[in-house]
């Protein structure tokens, strides 16, 4: 072989097997042997299902009866591992929950990875393992996926996109425009856990106690509460922007007012303390394993009981009502007896100086 021989770098792949690389190299996204090894040794064992194992360009799935729900979300959380979970858990739970909020039974997910050159394979393996476990627990299959690698400095270790498909039973009509005057607002547990868990481990913040993320798949809870009350009007998972943002959106979309009792709102003591310290309001802090349900008063107690029976809903509480007054506005009765309006924030909530 002469040194003047033309080398086609687009076809180039490093001949070494996966196990000899401790971290991601550009070749892992090249579609060649390294990519294949990543799929074979890492993704397939973690996600294990027959559709994925067929290794076709697309997954071929049986057509379910009923309407389809389809949703996608991208996950860029830092740090990638945090108390109570990881980006892998979020990537499964987030999309499963989005599907569940329209009353769908989630069935299949896709998983797209954007990895940064140099990202440790051990970390990727841990993330993928958590995804596989989360999917099995939620009863969904990860049936297709993709991996791309970007140059060092062009990513933040690992980004994940998941999309999901679910099926909605014929008698279910849930949507953000369906809140009606007199409806009861129920939240499935303590608010603000995930956001404060992330803040507590970010650079420069050291709390004395560990706040754990609430990341969880909610499809099980939704299934059991729909058994009691198939005519739930609205379901929402209050993720970014927290409960305040979700309820504001519902008030706007349904053109109703929502009035909550602040003292009924479940908040963990540690989360409340951290929020006091940083000048933040737990109502605006993200959740990843909570839902808010808006239901007819006749079924409110049954829905509450169904939530509380579920492990992710033990602290569920009725927090307020839908009203004809102050349409489009979320308001809260303060423990003191005053009323305050809880507006949409312009951007993310920032710690206050005073």
């Amino acid at each position: 072989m002469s040194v003047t021989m033309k080398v086609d770098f687009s076809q180039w792949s490093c001949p070494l097997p996966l196990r000899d690389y401790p971290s991601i190299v550009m070749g892992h996204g090249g579609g060649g042997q390294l990519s294949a090894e990543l799929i074979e040794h890492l993704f397939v064992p973690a996600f294990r299902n027959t559709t994925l194992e067929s290794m076709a360009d697309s997954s071929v799935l049986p057509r379910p009866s009923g309407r389809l729900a389809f949703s996608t979300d991208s996950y860029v959380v830092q740090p990638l591992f945090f108390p109570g979970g990881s980006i892998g858990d979020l990537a499964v739970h987030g999309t499963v929950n989005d599907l569940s909020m329209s009353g769908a039974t989630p069935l299949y997910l896709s998983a797209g990875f954007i990895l940064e050159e140099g990202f440790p394979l051990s970390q990727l393996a841990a993330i993928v393992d958590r995804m596989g476990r989360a999917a099995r627990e939620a009863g969904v299959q990860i049936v297709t996926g993709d991996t791309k690698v970007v140059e060092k400095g062009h990513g933040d270790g690992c980004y994940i996109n998941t999309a999901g498909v679910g099926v909605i039973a014929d008698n279910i009509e849930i949507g953000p425009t369906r809140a009606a005057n007199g409806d009861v607002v129920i939240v499935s547990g303590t608010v603000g856990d995930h956001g404060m868990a992330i803040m507590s481990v970010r650079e420069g913040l050291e709390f004395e106690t560990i706040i754990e993320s609430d990341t969880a798949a909610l499809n099980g809870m939704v299934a059991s509460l729909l058994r009691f009350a198939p005519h739930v009007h609205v379901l929402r998972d209050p993720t970014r922007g927290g409960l305040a943002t979700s309820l504001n959106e519902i008030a706007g979309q349904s053109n109703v007012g929502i009035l909550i009792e602040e003292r009924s709102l479940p908040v963990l003591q540690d989360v409340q303390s951290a929020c006091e310290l940083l000048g933040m309001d737990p109502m605006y802090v993200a959740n990843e394993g909570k839902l808010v349900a808006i239901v007819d008063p006749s079924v409110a107690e049954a829905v509450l009981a169904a939530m509380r029976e579920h492990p992710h809903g033990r602290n569920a509480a009725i927090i307020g009502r839908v009203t004809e007054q102050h349409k489009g506005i979320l308001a809260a009765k303060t423990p003191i007896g005053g009323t305050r309006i809880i507006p949409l924030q312009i951007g993310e909530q920032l710690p206050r100086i005073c």
Partner: protein
Amino acid sequence: MKYLDEFRDGELARSLARQIQQTATRSWAIMEVCGGQTHSIVRNGLDQLLEGAVEMIHGPGCPVCVTPLELIDKALAIASEPGVIFCSFGDMLRVPGSHFDLFRVKADGADVRVVYSPLDALTIARQNPDREVVFFGIGFETTAPANAMAVHQAKQQGLKNFSMLVSHVLVPPAIEAIMNSPSCRVQAFLAAGHVCSVMGYWQYYPLVERYRVPIVITGFEPLDLLEGIRRTVIQLEAGTPQVENAYERAVCFEGNQPAQALLAQVFEVTDRSWRGIGMIPRSGWKLSDAYRDFDAEYRFSVGNIRAEESPICRSGEVLQGNLKPNECPGFGKECTPRHPLGATMVSSEGACAAYYNYGRFVAVDSIR
């Protein structure tokens, strides 16, 4: 939560509010100086409990709001310099300068970091010896000791890559400026408890003497605020203005003397512009000559940056309770929470932002 729940008791709060209502023979205009107090009043709906007896005028005590445009432009210029790590409290990132905010320069590639203490910025400086680390040191007397400590430690440790962009403001000169305004409606002040925990309250006697207004040192929890207001109303009704401490669990007459000694060493008094109000003589602190090497304004030669406040904005009058936000010609047109022209639209607790967020729905009264 211990030490908080005791001061948020609804029953006691309503009883205090009743006492205030019974004591007041007319409606009194009381200014709470501090933004933290404004936040608590709005958040808990205290102003509603006091309707008819007390009108709360929200003072200029939000350091984010009153930081002058010019200084924010300087911060943006420094943050945009190559190699700089610019550290700030979170809520300064959204405050617009003449053209954009820190979020925007961050998006354009600047290394802007949110920290929770100036000492965190010092740590970043130690970890990045080849980078210039700048901390945006703003705030009232409350945040000043921590900032002074950071600069002091930087000097002690011989850190060459740390500096601070300082825009400290002081409460007593602001009270004086408000009282000197010919159209002033304020009849009494709630002094900021946290400021007084550092500075004590000896500074307020000359002000009460000169302007004959009650000044009551007040805390931040609902019961603290209601107790401060109750004592103020008693003074107003009796016509015997004096300095009174209603926040005894945190504040003493002398204040925190070691902190004051450090402040006197690190800072010196200077004239300061307040966004929405204008220049107030001797109303701020800058780094003293001994610490000039740590002054980011000198290190980055941004001294020549000048900025003009919007000619439309009348937030100064709003801050003094002389103008309702929606009476300002810019309100809701050129000036919105997304594109604020003045102090009172910047912060969510600012009077203009509150009016904009709630008032545009008109139906606000129906929730009371």
